[in-house]
């Protein structure tokens, strides 16, 4: 009996749900959206946390790995191989530490080797690294397969150290090895190399040059001299793809344990008898995990704030929809009371349907939330980021359901507490209640505005995730106040339209003026539209700023790292690949070796190509301005392929030792070359020098160098009459503008010599005087070098050297002058300067080997640009693109929060439109009686339809018209305090909301609103048949 009764009851409930299937579907959909919104937050936050963790780990590269180092002291390395095996046994077994399944062992010996037949001439690392050959490009020959063999870098071979395939090298560490192959690293920054500086080659300051590491077989280490100091290394790369947020606590614990253990071993040192190890374990994993945790914190906070706003909006819409649904059941609830059902039974009857719907909505909402998180994950998060169901998402599901139930109860409260007669009469809200509502709206608006002010004042600059509440607060205030004002405005339309014959407009104005329920929905719609507009504007602003940041950080559309080696001049190679200078440019970054003037990075760019290829940094000068400033030179670069040059000089008043006349040149092989043309003599003479310039040289100037045996003062007067080169079997004058004032300059500027130059019709006169070093006159490059600098990068005033100077590790000085100060510059950002690459390398002989070289490719580079660069002789090592950097920045926590805000706001706006449509549909039946009456008294159907459309357009359009400017204003006010990046950037961020996307969004939304208005008006009219009047009012 009881079962039958219960079944009957369920059947009755299902019949009711089907009877009002439109409302049931609405409650189901909105309920599912509320629950989905609640669940989306934790699901998305978790996925975003996974994504940022993965990005942080990926960007950190080998820094997340564990490096175990054993540095046996001198004399201890008696049997490196066995010692290696013994030491390795003390390192963790691969896989024993979670996340570190593999291990790469190395034996590295820092030693010297002979070069050009002179031992020891170069500093070199002798390396055995397990599996290294798979990460090298073997240019010639092969990898070492046993003792006695060595693999050297192609760059070292190219650099004329006398090393060649098949030749032998003697190492200070003992062995004499045969070169069996040459290599180029596939990518020196590859994770396999773990950040070790195996591939560095540069000229030594006071000692030998350093060349790239050479690779030997492991058995070779057995032949090392006993006094050799070797480093035994074991690198454990982190299996980044396998690391999830859940693994982080264990990872931290394990690494902390290892650090304790190996710190103890290390501190044991010599005191530990018989212990052959001097351990050091290092990793940056903890720092990387801390950075990831910081990002995750930002994501969590941002997501919480965003989804709270969406959930609140969806909750309000649900409240309205359930209110309509319950109101439509008013007679049934009154019937329950009429039949004497006790309050609890009546409540059960009234709430049964919404609760069943919400229960059904729970799994649907969860599915929707998961699906949305999945979609967002595939759209904006790191590839293959999993969407994991966690306890917090289950708790959110419970909270979402509870919130929906509360909405249903709150919406049913009025119907449940009203008397039967009041329900039948459908009494409206009392006047005091309306006044209370107005006061509440005003109070809410003021609170929202106050909150906004507090956020803007206290939020700092782009570092407060709580600021994500600001747009919501602003649009709430505007929406509430605006929709309160709407009836007042429409009331002013009543009088002019009453007798005008425009009955449609009159009816619409009258309806809006008296319809508070519709206005509540309009307020919600305005909030939703405002948030969506903010989302559109904010995301566009943030995207533009990400774009600007990526442009500033990279400097060009694509940046290709290239390896420098003598004979493979990047500038010349780029010139061959892109002769017209349309899409490629060589550039280099360099940290000066002292000089007390520059504390930042020097970016050297090819001024002739910069404007076409390079990007500017937002807030700094344009690429063209930079090019113009650094390219300033009164003289043209003089390149020659002549094998002989001569200079005609008239000399007089020679005191001290007569100096040697030297041509100062630069070639692709020798960055600074002084070629002697003879000793100065009184009278007019020709001084001839033989040059090794068949591959091209640049004339930098002339020098009057002192004989090595003389250390007194040299002085005299010279007249340089002309300079000639021997080409095509004859002498020809070269145009060096000897008679043009300002073309030649005295130099070097920082020396104990002085040259007083005067350009005369007969030639260039120089009254020289030198007490130390040499005296010289410079033709090229200009001195001081013109640069564009940021204030932080150059020391000025006080004890700063004048003129400002930068010094290479050969102690060559280049003076410079800041032609333009900039807030921010490409690549070096707020701490560096940009100089002319051609000038800098002409001035500083060590620049080429000290700098990090890149080739910048412009947006119009051909698709085979890299192939062309390779064909031009460059060794490419890695490509960075602005696109990948933009994507990377787009996956930072603040960007993810903003994207979520946009998506949620658009969903919210659609939900609000849907809720409005439901409300209109609910009111259609109620309104049909009066509309039918109007039809009966002769109001044309067309006028009624028009009135209905105008009414809905007034309400919905007002929401759009309020929401869009409010959202745009919110974007303008709130974006400066909303974080856009997880870290800080010195570039100038711009906050003007872009107009086109807002217009596109507004247009799309207005179309949607107009369609809704037309459908709603048609629905009201369809229900308003004259037979309706025969029915009693319900």
């Amino acid at each position: 009996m009881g079962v039958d009764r219960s079944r009957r009851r369920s059947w009755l409930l299902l019949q009711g749900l089907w009877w009002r299937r439109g409302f049931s579907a609405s409650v189901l959909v909105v309920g599912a959206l509320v629950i989905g919104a609640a669940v989306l937050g934790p699901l998305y936050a978790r996925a975003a946390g996974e994504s940022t963790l993965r990005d942080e780990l990926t960007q950190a590269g080998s820094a997340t790995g564990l490096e175990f180092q054993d540095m046996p002291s001198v004399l201890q390395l008696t049997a490196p191989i066995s010692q290696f095996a013994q030491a390795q046994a003390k390192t963790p077994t691969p896989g024993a530490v979670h996340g570190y399944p593999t291990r790469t062992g190395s034996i590295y010996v820092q030693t010297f080797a002979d070069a050009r037949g002179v031992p020891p001439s170069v500093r070199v690392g002798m390396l055995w690294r397990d599996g290294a050959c798979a990460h090298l490009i073997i240019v010639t020959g092969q990898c070492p397969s046993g003792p006695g063999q060595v693999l050297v870098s192609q760059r070292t071979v190219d650099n004329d150290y006398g090393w060649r395939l098949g030749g032998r090298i003697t190492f200070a560490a003992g062995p004499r090895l045969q070169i069996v192959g040459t290599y180029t690293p596939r990518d020196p920054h590859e994770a396999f190399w773990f950040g070790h500086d195996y591939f560095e080659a540069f000229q030594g300051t006071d000692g030998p040059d350093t060349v790239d590491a050479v690779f030997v077989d492991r058995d070779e280490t057995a032949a090392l001299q006993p006094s050799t100091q070797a480093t035994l290394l074991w690198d454990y790369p982190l299996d980044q793809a396998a690391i999830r947020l859940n693994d982080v606590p264990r990872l931290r614990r394990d690494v902390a344990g290892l650090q304790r253990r190996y710190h103890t071993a290390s501190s044991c040192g010599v005191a530990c008898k018989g212990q052959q190890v001097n351990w050091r374990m290092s990793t940056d994993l903890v720092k990387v995990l801390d950075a990831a945790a910081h990002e995750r914190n930002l994501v969590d906070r941002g997501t919480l704030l965003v989804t709270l706003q969406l959930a609140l909006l969806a909750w309000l819409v649900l409240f309205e929809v359930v209110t309509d649904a319950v109101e439509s059941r008013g007679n049934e609830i009154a019937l329950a009371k009429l039949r004497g059902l006790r309050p609890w039974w009546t409540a059960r009857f009234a709430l049964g349907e919404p609760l069943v719907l919400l229960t059904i909505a729970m799994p649907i909402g969860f599915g929707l939330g998961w699906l949305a998180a999945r979609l967002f994950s595939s759209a904006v998060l790191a590839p293959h980021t999993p969407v994991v169901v966690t306890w917090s998402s289950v708790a959110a599901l419970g909270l979402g359901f509870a919130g929906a139930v509360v909405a249903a109860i709150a919406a049913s409260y009025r119907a449940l507490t009203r008397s039967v007669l009041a329900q039948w009469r459908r009494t409206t809200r009392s006047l005091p209640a309306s006044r209370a509502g107005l006061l509440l709206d005003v109070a809410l608006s003021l609170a929202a505005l106050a909150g906004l002010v507090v956020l803007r004042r206290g939020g700092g600059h782009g570092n407060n995730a709580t600021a994500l509440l600001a747009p919501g607060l602003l649009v709430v205030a505007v929406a509430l106040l605006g929709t309160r004002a709407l009836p007042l405005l429409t009331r002013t339309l009543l009088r002019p339209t009453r007798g005008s014959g425009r009955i449609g407009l009159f009816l619409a104005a009258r309806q809006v003026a008296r319809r508070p329920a519709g206005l509540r929905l309009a307020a919600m719609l305005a909030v939703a539209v405002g948030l969506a507009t903010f989302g559109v504007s904010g995301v566009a602003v943030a995207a533009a700023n990400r774009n600007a940041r990526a442009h500033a950080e990279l400097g060009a559309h694509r940046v290709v790292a290239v390896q420098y080696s003598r004979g493979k001049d990047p500038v010349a190679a780029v010139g061959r690949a892109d002769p017209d200078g349309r899409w490629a440019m060589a550039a280099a970054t360099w940290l000066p070796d002292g000089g007390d003037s520059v504390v930042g990075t020097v970016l050297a760019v090819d001024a002739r190509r910069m404007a076409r290829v390079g990007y500017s940094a937002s807030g700094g000068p344009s690429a063209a301005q930079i090019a113009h400033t650094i390219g300033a030179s009164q003289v043209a670069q003089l390149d020659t392929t002549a094998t002989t040059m001569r200079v005609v000089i008239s000399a007089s008043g020679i005191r001290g030792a007569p100096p040697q006349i030297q041509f100062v040149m630069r070639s692709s092989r020798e960055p600074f070359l002084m070629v002697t043309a003879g000793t100065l003599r009184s009278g007019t003479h020709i001084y001839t020098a033989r040059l090794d310039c068949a591959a091209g040289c640049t004339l930098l100037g002339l020098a009057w160098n002192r004989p090595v045996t003389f250390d007194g003062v040299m002085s005299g007067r010279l007249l340089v009459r002309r300079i000639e080169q021997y080409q095509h079997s004859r002498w020809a004058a070269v145009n060096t503008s000897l008679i043009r004032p300002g073309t030649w300059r005295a130099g070097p500027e920082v020396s104990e010599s002085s040259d007083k130059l005067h350009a005369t019709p007969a030639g260039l006169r120089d009254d020289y005087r030198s007490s130390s070093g040499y005296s010289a006159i410079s033709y090229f490059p200009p001195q001081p070098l013109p640069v564009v600098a940021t204030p932080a990068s150059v020391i000025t005033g006080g004890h700063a050297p004048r003129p400002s100077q930068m010094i290479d590790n050969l102690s060559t000085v280049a003076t410079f002058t800041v032609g333009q100060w900039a807030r921010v510059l490409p690549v070096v950002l707020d701490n560096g300067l940009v100089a002319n690459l051609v000038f800098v390398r002409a001035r500083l002989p060590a620049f080429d080997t000290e700098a990090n070289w890149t080739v910048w490719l412009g947006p119009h580079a051909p698709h085979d640009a890299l192939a062309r660069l390779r064909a031009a002789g460059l060794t490419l090592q890695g490509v960075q693109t602005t696109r990948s950097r933009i994507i990377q920045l787009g996956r930072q926590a603040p960007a993810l929060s903003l994207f979520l805000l946009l998506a949620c706001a658009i969903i919210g706006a659609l939900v609000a439109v849907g809720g409005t449509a439901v409300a209109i549909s609910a009111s259609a039946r109620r309104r049909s009686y009066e509309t039918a009456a109007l039809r009966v008294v002769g109001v044309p159907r067309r006028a009624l339809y028009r009135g209905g459309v105008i009414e809905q357009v007034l309400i919905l359009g007002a929401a759009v018209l309020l929401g869009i400017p409010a959202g745009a204003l919110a974007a303008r006010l709130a974006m400066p305090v909303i974080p856009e990046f997880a870290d800080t950037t010195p570039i100038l961020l711009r906050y003007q909301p872009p107009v086109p996307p807002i217009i596109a969004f507004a247009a799309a939304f207005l179309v949607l609103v107009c369609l809704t208005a037309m459908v709603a008006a048609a629905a009201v009219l369809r229900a308003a048949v004259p037979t309706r009047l025969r029915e009693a009012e319900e």
Partner: protein
Amino acid sequence: MTGLEVRCDELRHVYQIDGEQLVALDGIDLTIAPGTTSAIIGPSGSGKSTLVNILAGLQRPTSGYVYIGDNELSAMSQTALLRIRAKRVGIAVQSPSRNLLPFADPFDNIRFAQRGPRSFPGRSDLPDPARLLRDLGLADLASVPVDRLSGGERQRVALAVGMANHPGLLIADEPTSQLDSANRDRVVELLRHISTHFATTVVAVTHDPQVAAGLDRTIRLHEGRLLKDGAA
């Protein structure tokens, strides 16, 4: 349950509308004998609906007393009034949509109406819905959804649902409005059948003298006063 006596002593009801008083019932003294059928008749605004609402416990009088059997309604709590409606009074109001769940059939409507008495503790002697419908000659409509019934059928089903709790008093407010004469006669016949078959006191409000003529007694109201009380 046997029919209940209905008695009103000095019954008065005043509405406050925009600060003004409107007297709906003005000192009604009335006794309706148990198991009889009575028609309350009068023009619009005479106080018929107010009287019926007070008898049904939906409204409290401004002053005076109302007795349904031994229960005086004016001093009762809301719960006690609910119990009276649930167990002792059946009601069929004017609009069919206010009497019936439109999506359910008569059988389920009766079951729904029986939830009222069931919601109170204690045993309820409730009729079997199918038998009730059969007794009232509505068995063939038992499983037809209400929204497919005609106006006359709905009105008769509404009376049947009013009898779902086997009440001592059945109040019918305009049970024949919007019905043609054939349906009207069938409804009047049903009211009489209810009174005789179940010994229920029937009070029907009507505009229609033909309906009043079909019942045992006619009670006339005019401007809140009882004009004439006598046998039809």
